[in-house]
């Protein structure tokens, strides 16, 4: 080996490297109208119509490829988004027999494979989740979305465009729940050999986008469904590309270097840098709440309403929002002011440490003689925002009014276990609260599941064993009120009672920051967990 040889080799290598680098400046000459999205999920969420990866799955693999009977109206950023007719044109519960619902279906809708959408297809899609004996029943899908349709006892095809649902008990929330049951094509399922994994590779729904290419863990490419039934929502894009990028800094770098056009959840401390490069940052409050869910078992320190109210008044939510770079909204209850279910609570949740100290003194505690409580928190997790610094901030706040918080930190999935088990479970002995964030999208999941006394674990996720006969009566009334405005009224009463009883310690709502290239036009961030990408174009 001579020195000249190795030097030449090194030089040649360096030259080759420089050459390839120069010719490869990330391709900016993308085809017109391709939107490349950097998702936080580590894989493409399941595409068979029952997405995993939480609501991000519904956002990108769900409502893009599929529709439900009832969809969310995601067209406006300045008002709470509500449900609207989609594959169903109208629905009604029988006034005399409120467990019977009739849904009139939209005529002329076709699945991506060309087969017609009709009442038989609806019944078939419910069987896949609820009928364990059906040949196409899928336990995995049932576990992902089946609980949404848990109140459905049976379906009955009346004619091609009419289907009847019978619920186990009167359930006025059914239309909300049906927005999560996406309609997959029975014909395509047959065509791919009756195999859900194969169906996921070649899915067929009725949605505004079709799946063109799927490489697990790398990318999914969606193209517009030009024959979409809602002409106003035929996608403007030529192509929508979904790329899993679980690492937040990677997403930011990919956006800055032009490899993607839109990213989910940029880290707050990169926002200034993104803005200085001309990136657009959007954010909007949506039905998310980051609270402490309190135990109400006999050994819990939270049974004194003065303590619960004091804790709610002790937190400097504006300071906390500043810590989050402005990407949060201080909470004054479980849902935000302005939502139809807010009601008229009298307890005004704000930062008032004086009033908090006074309440604590009345309850017999002070910073010198503090009350002790133990809360389970997680270092990360879906919807958990930035739990460690946030909890430390709150710990400091509460200390100043005489509440000493001790944290038990555990991985998110372990915390989910603790949450499911309920406060009474052995593993939760000595635990007085859980920092678990919630989606308040539909009435049942927003309120009812936490307040009804028959939903204590293991029957449900009333984790803290809260029980109040008055609240049970209100919850039953809401489930039996079928007229939407009247239903909102009752839900408002439930929320007002929750706030006035200080059933939780409510802290902040997330605002779902997103960053996108200046080339992205027409993006509307609705006040929802979900997004409509059909009006978006890339120039």
């Amino acid at each position, binding site marked *: 080996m001579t020195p000249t040889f*190795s030097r030449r080799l090194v030089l040649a290598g360096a030259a080759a*490297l420089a*050459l*390839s*680098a*120069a*010719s*490869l*400046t*990330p*391709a900016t000459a*993308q085809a017109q109208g*391709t939107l*490349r999205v950097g998702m936080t999920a*580590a*894989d493409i969420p*399941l595409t068979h119509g029952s997405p*995993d990866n939480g609501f991000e799955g519904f956002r990108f693999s769900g409502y893009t490829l599929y529709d439900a009977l009832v969809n969310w109206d995601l067209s406006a950023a300045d008002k709470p988004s509500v449900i609207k007719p989609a594959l169903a044109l109208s629905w009604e519960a029988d006034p005399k027999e409120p467990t019977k619902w009739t849904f009139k279906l939209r005529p002329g809708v076709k699945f991506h494979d060309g087969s017609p959408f009709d009442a038989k297809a609806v019944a078939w899609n419910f069987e896949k989740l609820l009928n*364990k004996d059906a040949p196409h029943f899928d*336990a*995995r899908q*049932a*576990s*992902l*979305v*089946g*609980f949404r349709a*848990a109140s459905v006892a049976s379906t009955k095809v009346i004619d091609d465009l009419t289907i009847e649902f019978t619920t186990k008990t009167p359930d006025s929330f059914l239309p909300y729940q049906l927005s999560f049951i996406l309609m997959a094509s029975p014909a395509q399922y047959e065509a791919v050999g009756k195999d*859900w*994994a194969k169906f*996921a590779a070649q899915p067929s729904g009725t949605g505004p986008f079709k799946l063109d*290419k799927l*490489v*697990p*863990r*790398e*990318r999914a490419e969606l193209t517009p469904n030009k024959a979409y039934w809602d002409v106003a929502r035929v996608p403007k894009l030529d192509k929508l*590309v979904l*790329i*899993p*990028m*679980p*690492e937040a*800094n*990677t997403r930011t*770098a*990919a956006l*800055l*270097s*032009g*490899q993607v056009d839109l990213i989910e959840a940029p880290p707050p401390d990169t926002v200034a840098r993104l803005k200085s490069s001309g990136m657009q940052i959007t954010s909007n409050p949506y039905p998310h709440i980051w609270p402490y869910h309190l135990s109400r078992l006999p050994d819990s320190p939270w049974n004194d309403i003065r303590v619960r109210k004091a804790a709610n008044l002790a937190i400097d939510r504006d300071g906390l929002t500043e810590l989050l770079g402005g990407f949060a909204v201080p909470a004054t209850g479980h849902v935000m002011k302005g939502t139809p279910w807010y009601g008229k609570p009298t307890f005004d949740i704000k930062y008032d440490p004086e009033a908090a100290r006074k309440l604590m003194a009345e309850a017999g505690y002070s910073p010198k003689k503090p009350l002790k409580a133990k809360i389970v928190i997680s270092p990360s997790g879906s919807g958990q925002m930035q739990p460690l610094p946030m909890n430390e901030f709150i710990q400091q706040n509460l200390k100043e009014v005489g509440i000493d918080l001790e944290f038990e930190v555990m*991985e998110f*999935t*372990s915390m*989910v*276990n603790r*949450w*499911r088990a309920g406060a009474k479970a052995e593993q939760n002995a000595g635990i007085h609260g859980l920092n678990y964030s919630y989606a308040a999208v539909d009435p049942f999941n927003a309120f009812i599941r936490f307040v009804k006394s028959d939903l204590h674990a*293991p029957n449900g*996720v009333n984790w803290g064993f809260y029980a109040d006969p008055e609240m049970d009566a209100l919850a039953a009334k809401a489930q039996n009120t079928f007229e939407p405005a009247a239903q909102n009224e009752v839900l408002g009463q439930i929320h007002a009672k929750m706030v006035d009883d200080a059933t939780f310690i409510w802290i902040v709502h997330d605002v779902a920051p997103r960053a996108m290239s200046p080339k992205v036009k027409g993006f509307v961030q609705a006040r929802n967990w979900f997004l409509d990408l059909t009006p978006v174009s890339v120039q």
Partner: protein
Amino acid sequence: MFAYILRRILYIVPIALGVTLLVFALVHIAPGDPLNAVVGPDAPAEVVEQLRRSYGFDQPLPVQYVIYLGHVLSGDLGQSVATGRPVIADLGRALGNTLILSVGAAIVGFTSGILLGALAGWHRGGFIDRLATLLTLIGVSVPHYWLGMVLVIVMAVELNLLPAMGMAPGGATGWGFTGAHLAHAVLPVLTMSVIPMGIVARSVRATVAEVLQQEFVQALRAKGLGRGPVLRHVVRNVAPTVVSVLGLQFGYLLGGSILIETVFSWPGTGFLLNEAIFKRDLPLLQGTILMLGLFFVLLNLLVDIAQAALDPRMRRS
């Protein structure tokens, strides 16, 4: 030599069985319900139980192990709990992707490591030695995910010379030997090569220095041999040790790097493992670790054979 190789190959059987047992035990001992992360948080208990039965998680662990072993022996690594796809398909793709990174990192890291180490060992105590030692110290000490991020910030974000993530240019999937694909590999390969560079350089330096101290080198020099011929003898003596270090390092590289592959969104085994761990996707986790473990065993066999070929003393022992 033949008997030696045969013996080594026979050793693999109990080792491989041990690997399957260890992998199975580790994955099942770790806390967390395998179904927890894959079912919806509100899934009714009966549906969860049905799912548990359909995956066989309700069986006693020894029974699960025997069933698992039977499947593995027939080449079936099962289905991913999270996606329903066969583990072998996802794993095969991920292994291929990681192989690209590890071969790249091995070429860069081993060449630079051997060169640096040899130079340092040959000029022990001199300026070149100190410079090389400094470089290798940096190599083994710098956290590679940090280095990866810094490289991305400089080369992709600020200078816009190389892509920040992914393994293929927009529109393409999978690997191909085009300039665009190579450009995607530059940063992760560089990041990944730093640690093996440091480790290889250190052991080469130590071995070269040690061999140079030995009497036979002095004898060769006293005989009047020039630099070149002396070097040839030194290389022969250094090679067995270096080969075993290279083998081990290549094994680590093949394992992929959860951190590097996550930083660069490189869909290899590290990326796969990361997701399998977070989702408690036991079949995927088991399959991936098992395959990586077997690779390691196989690589050790190759190293042993190479060492025996290079050093006759090994065959006798």
